[in-house]
Structures are given as C-alpha cells and as structure tokens.
C-alpha cells in the first residue's frame, strides 16, 4: 500500500477511535481528566519499556492502562479526601508526568522515544514503523495498535452501552439501581488510556486531546440522540484526519498539527452554524421572537 494511504488510514482510525471514546468524556465533563491521562500514559510507556526491554505494542497498552487508571484513581482519592477536582487533577497529572520525563531522560539512550515525539507525534514516520503480529504480514505498528484498540472500544461500548449512558446522565440513579458507578468510570478511563497510547505515534499527547474532545463537542451540538452523537463524532474524526492530511501536503506543514487544526475549525463552524444549537440560529430565533 502506498505511503499516502497508510497515513490516511492511520489518521482516520485515530479519528474514529478518539471520536467515539471522546463523546463520553464530553457528556461526563471529563475533558480535563482525559488531558491528564493523555500525558501520564507517557510514564506507562516508559515503564513498559523498562519491564519488557522492548517497544512492543501489547506492553505499551498494558502500561498505559495501569498508569491511566493510577491517574484516575489518584484523582478520585484526592477529590474524595476533600481536595477540589481540578486541583487533584493538576497534582496527580504533573507528578506522574514528571516521573515519566525523568525516567525517559535516564533511559534516553535505550528508549527510541523522546519527549518531543511523545508530545507532538509524527504521523509521517508511521508507514515505516513496521511490525509482524502472528500470521499477519508486516504492517505499520500504529495501524495494528489503533485497529486493536478500536475493536476493544467498540466491544466495550457495545456491551455496556446502557450502563455508560445512565451513569453519564444520572449517576445517583445508576447507583440506586445497583450499578458499580465508579467501576464503570474506571472502565472508561481504561479505554481513554489505551486510545491515547495507540494514537501516540501518530498525533502525540497534546494533539490527541484535540482528537478526543473536538469531534464529540461538535457532534454534541448537532444532535439530541446519544447514538447519533457517537456516529457523528466518528465521522467528524475521520473527516478531520482526511482533510487535515491534504491540507498539510498542500501547505507543506505538520500533518498531525493540521489534523488537529481542522478539528478545531470544524468545531468553530458547528458552533456558529449548527441548525439547532448554533450561535447564529439561536441569535436568529431570538430576533424572530422579538419581531413577532
């Protein structure tokens, strides 16, 4: 397959995976926690390397889940102990991230990973980073990781759809009917962790937040139905990746930066022009009401 199509495929996979998972972050107002996790999983990657002495995908996913959950549990515990939620996030996030940065510099010679790369990602190199899994031919590692994570996310969201929905809408009612609300929260944070790690190579820790939050935020303004929101979010994630790629080759700029920018532009357009919840339509209805 051509170099260009690999980048498009990997970008789109990141768009879909992040877009779908991100919807629940929007609905639960957890964008900041997602931001934190996207950075602390760096520590997970380094630990995975130290333990396994390889950059194998499976170890990276496991490391991400462990540290992602550590982040979520740490924030929950501090918050429960009476510390404000944003302060809890700030403390846990910076601490775990800092440990990750220190470990990277200690093991810098061995880990093929520098902080810049982890933060910014480089989708340009994705087609050449090939691995061989089982009976499959050699394929780009980012492609394999993202496909695996997408399948995991779809299965989990499919299995626990109504539980995710009710714990997002009304956690008290959910607890009253006996659902393990906190466990479902951690399950979602686990998904966010593996999604982040799988998207790391392509878009990096900072831009992955844009991919997680922006499509869901746009979709939220376009529909009144959760299932449609998930669908639209996936669609917007893919569109941003594809448009972003062509924009980048046209302007000769960073591809991942361009993808994230397009996500931002789509959100701005939806925010202004959404037929029901857009700024203009709301202004327009107000005016019409005044004139009547």
């Amino acid at each position: 397959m051509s170099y260009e199509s690999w980048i498009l495929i990997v970008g789109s996979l990141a768009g879909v995976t992040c877009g779908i998972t991100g919807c629940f972050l929007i609905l639960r107002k957890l964008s900041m926690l997602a931001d934190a996790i996207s950075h602390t999983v760096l520590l997970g990657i380094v630990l995975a390397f130290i333990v396994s002495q390889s950059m194998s995908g499976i170890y990276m996913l496991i490391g991400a889940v462990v540290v992602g959950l550590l982040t979520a549990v740490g924030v929950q515990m501090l918050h429960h102990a009476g510390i404000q939620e944003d302060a809890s996030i700030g403390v846990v996030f910076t601490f775990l991230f800092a440990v990750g940065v220190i470990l990277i510099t200690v093991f810098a010679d061995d880990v093929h990973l520098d902080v810049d790369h982890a933060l910014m990602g480089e989708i340009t190199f994705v087609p050449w980073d090939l691995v061989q899994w089982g009976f499959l031919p050699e394929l780009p590692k980012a492609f394999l990781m993202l496909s695996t994570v997408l399948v995991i996310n779809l299965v989990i969201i499919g299995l626990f759809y109504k539980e995710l929905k009710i714990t997002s809408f009304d956690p008290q009612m959910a607890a009253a009917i006996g659902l393990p609300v906190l466990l479902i929260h951690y399950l979602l944070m686990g998904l966010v962790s593996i999604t982040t790690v799988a998207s790391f190579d392509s878009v990096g820790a900072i831009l992955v937040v844009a991919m997680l939050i922006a499509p869901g935020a746009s979709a939220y303004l376009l529909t009144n139905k959760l299932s449609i929101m998930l669908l639209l979010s996936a669609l917007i994630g893919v569109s941003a990746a594809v448009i972003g790629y062509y924009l980048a080759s046209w302007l000769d700029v960073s591809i991942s930066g361009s993808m994230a920018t397009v996500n931002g532009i789509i959100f701005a357009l939806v925010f202004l022009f959404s037929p029901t919840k857009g700024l203009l339509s709301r202004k327009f209805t107000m005016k019409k009401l005044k004139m009547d």
Partner: protein
Amino acid sequence: MNPVVVENLTVAYQKKPVLSNVSFEVPEGKLIGIIGPNGAGKSTLIKAILGLIPKAAGEIKIYDKKYRPKDRVVGYVPQRGSVDWDFPTNALDVVLMGRYGHVGWFKRPGKKDTEIAMECLKKVGMEKYANRQISQLSGGQQQRVFLARALAQDAKVYFMDEPFVGVDAATERAIIELLNELKRQGKTVLVVHHDLQTVKEYFDHVMLLNVNTIAAGPTEEVFTLENLTRTYGGKLSFLEKDQLIVEQK
C-alpha cells in the same frame, strides 16, 4: 412488616454530622411527608437509605432486609437539579432508564420495556412528549418524566425528593393524584416536601427532620405547631404560624 425502618442513623460528610441518631418507621401503603428546613438533611436521609452515601452508624432495613438494589423494591426520584438536562436523550429514553434494573447486564431494553415506559409516560400525561429532547421540556414536564421513570421501576417503596418544586398547581394536583393511586395499590411513598400549607391534605404520616428526628407519626398527631417550631426554630414565618393556628382550631 414495615417497609422502612431506620434506627439511630448517623451520617457525616466531613466531620460534622448531617444526620444524627435518626430513627423512624414507616407503615406500608401510606403517603409519608419528610419535612424540614433547608439543610436539615432530607436529601441526605434518602441517599443514605439508598446506600448512595456511607453511614457512620445505625441500621436501615427495607422490608426487614438490608437494602439491596437487586431486590428492586425501591424506586427513586432525585431532586430535578441533580442531572444535566442538556444530555442528548429524549423523554421516553429517560423513562426507559427506570427499566435498566430489570433488564440486567449485556441486554438492551426490549419491546415490553418500551411499552411499560410509554404507559408510565401516559400516566403522568406526557405521552405526547415521548420523543421530545429533554432540554426542550418545561421544569414541570421534566419533573413528570422523572416521576414516570420511577413508575417504570415498578417498586414497592418510592422515595421522591421534592417532586413538587417548580411545578404549577395543575401538575401538583396531577402528581398527588398519582401518588394516591400508588397508595391504593399498596405502595409506600416517601416525599420530601416544603409547602407546609398542604401537608395535612397530602400526607397520612409525616416525619419532621432537622439533623435529628423531631417527630414522626400520623399527621394529625405529629404535625403540630409545637413540633414545627422545634423543627424550624425561629425560621418558621409568622404567616405560616397564623395559618396553622387557624387550621388547628
């Protein structure tokens, strides 16, 4: 067997107890008002009974057993302000959530559940709004949807946190009709209520709460000026006092 028995319940959020040594029993098939000033711990009491917050001490029994959600005997109407009404979902979908406890893991609510949910919407006069996005409902309509969701839970004991807040007189009448209907079916309904004027008319029993149980029992015995003054302290307005005196004559 009494549906709800609370003994020496103490709950604290940080250090200061919000409920202290609360004890009361609730007879079956009655409408019970939980009355007390803001911050008295009414919502906390309900949450503690439902196991939503941990208790520091005490015993809570629902039909002689520790509360277990999977027994599905309890229905809950939270305070309306406790959820985000901009959530992308419609009225029918919210009522369907009342069926989730019956549906169980890994399954979706089926046709039967949808029928039940529609029926419950009908009971609260909201069937026309089944497909309406919940943010586009008025406050009173949202309250009715919450009520319909509790009905869909098909429980034996209901806890309702201020179901009359922000509803007009007609809706209030409709809701009280519905609660009386539940009562006739032998269900027990506990309602957090703020309007002292209507207490005698609505409730068979009352439970006066302000951190401690001030009094609990049949309305005509317990809902006295003396008990109210003890519950509300100086906060009971003169207007209410006058009216209560008039009613008591």
